[in-house]
């Protein structure tokens, strides 16, 4: 079967076709690019760098009900994720898709997380290759990713100018290609080759890097190193680096009860940079300062996670560097780890 293309003129039609599913695409809220559910294809904004908030929230929502209850009643009504229906996340970046495949390991480790896994099963990821690295702080190539990376994706689109090259990568992707078949045309024969060349070129444009070799083993040996005090001194303890990280997956569980006793137990993103994150009811806090919290963040990503799941929990999207209010730079920290 010939490789297909989606002409830019037909993107609207194609998105219209896909809106029979829960369709998630990048869109603008004022000047901020966010992934959101769209009903009108015109809302989609595909000519973007990367979104501020990663699309992980459509697999792992910032706030999610686990079950509902009436206070005092023994009956617990479990959330049925199936009701959310088939979801297509359209136009996400390869790093964010790869991040989901990394987080999958955690949610399917030992205990299966039924909410996350069901949602992932129902979701098809349509990636948009980075013809240009979206940010000066991209470093995906250092972590095994690529601007044209396919890990975690079901389909990859590549911007070829007037049209997108459409490459299905999995069964889900092939199914989606069939769904879209009326809007696709045959792509020029040498396009796949051309795309490979573009990938190389884009990789060459990635300017930041870190050699991760040996870091997971080295980090635990630097436990009491004075570098942690130094790199965390400016930290404000906010949640930017973790909430905007596509691989950060920590959550809190809280109960919320409304007037009349109707309540829900829900989970919401939590951040290891918050003071209350590890605070015991006794008042004791095993990570009392920003030093311990920063150390834990780096260790979790670059040492604990790989020691359990054989992959570093960072995809090099650069969000934490771009958006840190005080320019705490994970690559700067890792450089210091390497030098220590």
């Amino acid at each position: 079967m010939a490789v297909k293309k989606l002409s830019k003129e037909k993107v609207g039609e194609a998105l219209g076709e896909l809106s029979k599913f829960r369709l998630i695409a990048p869109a603008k809220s004022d000047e901020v690019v966010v992934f959101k559910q769209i009903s009108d294809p015109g809302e989609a904004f595909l000519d973007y760098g990367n979104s501020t908030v990663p699309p992980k929230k459509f697999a792992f929502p910032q706030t999610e009900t686990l079950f509902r209850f009436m206070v005092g009643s023994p009956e617990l009504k479990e959330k049925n994720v199936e009701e959310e229906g088939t979801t297509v996340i359209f136009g996400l970046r390869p790093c964010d898709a790869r991040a989901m495949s990394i987080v999958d390991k955690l949610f399917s480790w030992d205990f299966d997380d039924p909410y996350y896994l069901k949602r992932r099963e129902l979701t098809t990821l349509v990636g948009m290759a980075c013809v240009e690295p979206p940010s000066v702080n991209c470093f995906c190539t250092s972590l095994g990713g690529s601007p044209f990376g396919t890990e975690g994706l079901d389909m990859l689109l590549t911007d070829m100018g007037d049209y997108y090259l459409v490459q299905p990568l999995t069964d889900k992707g092939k199914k989606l290609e069939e769904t879209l078949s009326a809007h696709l045309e045959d792509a020029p024969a040498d396009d796949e080759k051309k795309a490979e060349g573009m990938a190389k070129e884009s990789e060459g444009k990635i300017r930041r890097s870190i050699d991760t070799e040996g870091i997971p083993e080295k980090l635990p040996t630097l436990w009491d190193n004075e570098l942690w005090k130094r790199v965390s001194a400016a930290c404000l303890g906010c949640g930017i680096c973790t909430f905007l990280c596509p691989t950060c997956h920590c959550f809190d569980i809280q109960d919320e009860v409304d007037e009349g006793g109707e309540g829900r137990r829900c989970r919401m993103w939590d951040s290891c940079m918050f003071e209350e994150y590890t605070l015991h009811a006794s008042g004791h806090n095993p990570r009392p300062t920003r030093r311990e919290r920063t150390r834990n963040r780096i260790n979790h990503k670059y040492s604990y996670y790989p020691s359990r799941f054989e992959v570093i929990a960072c995809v090099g999207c650069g969000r934490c560097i771009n958006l840190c209010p005080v320019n705490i730079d994970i690559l700067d920290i890792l450089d210091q780890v390497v030098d220590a």
Partner: protein
Amino acid sequence: MKNPYIPYEVKILDTWYEAPGDRCIKTFKVTFTDEKVWDTWNHLPGQCAMVGIPGVGESMFCISSSPTEKGYLRFSIMKAGKNTSALHELEAGDTFFVRGPLGNNFPLEEWKGKNVVTIGGGIGQAPLRPVIQWIRDNRADYGELELIYGARTSADHCFKDEFKEIIEEGECECHLSVDVEEEEWPHFVGFVPQLLMEVAPKPDNTIAVTCGPPIMIKFVLQNLEKLGFTPDQVYTTLENRMKCGIGKCGRCNVGHLYVCKDGPVFSYAQLKEIPEAFA
């Protein structure tokens, strides 16, 4: 597979206070409202459960009864925060919710034929109680059992009646202490690590299990080393703030280990490698 976030309802059969004060300790003896849950419920000494009330929250507690005690579970809970305060309001006949069993257990199979000494402080006796009970109920499988336990005052001692019973029956050595001198106290006065040195259990073919406040554990571990215990002969349990209890939510880690999933039971040999374990 069952959704691991959905708890079971339990009914309180009986409840009583172990220790008084602002941070009083209350024991709950409960059974599942749905008797059928017992068919699938298997826990071992050392394992934990998330205990809570929908609308208030959940927190992790060790199951302080041994599986050899049939027909009920026990939890001994100190009043500290929002959830524990709400639990303390409950009386016999009331219900709450339990999710588990979670975490690992004391390797009691491996300990067969060995002597066991437990060293507890305050509410730290709660995870040791199922170990003691298990050994008492499988007496022939184990060697000597020796108990060391202390709390601030005699009123703060948990499981007073059971200690009394053990002492009266004389089935094992039992050493008690209080931190400060009080009238008519027949036992040791001083901190648990001191009592441990006083008792000086022999390390040969012996497992030491300790649980209590972090500062006590720290000195107990040092003293056990002085007594000649090797790190793999010493076990303890850790605790941390937990939310999911199944190794997802991320907060309870000490180093690369999740207390909720890889713990709460750790050998000192494991923990020695992890500086965060005693933070």
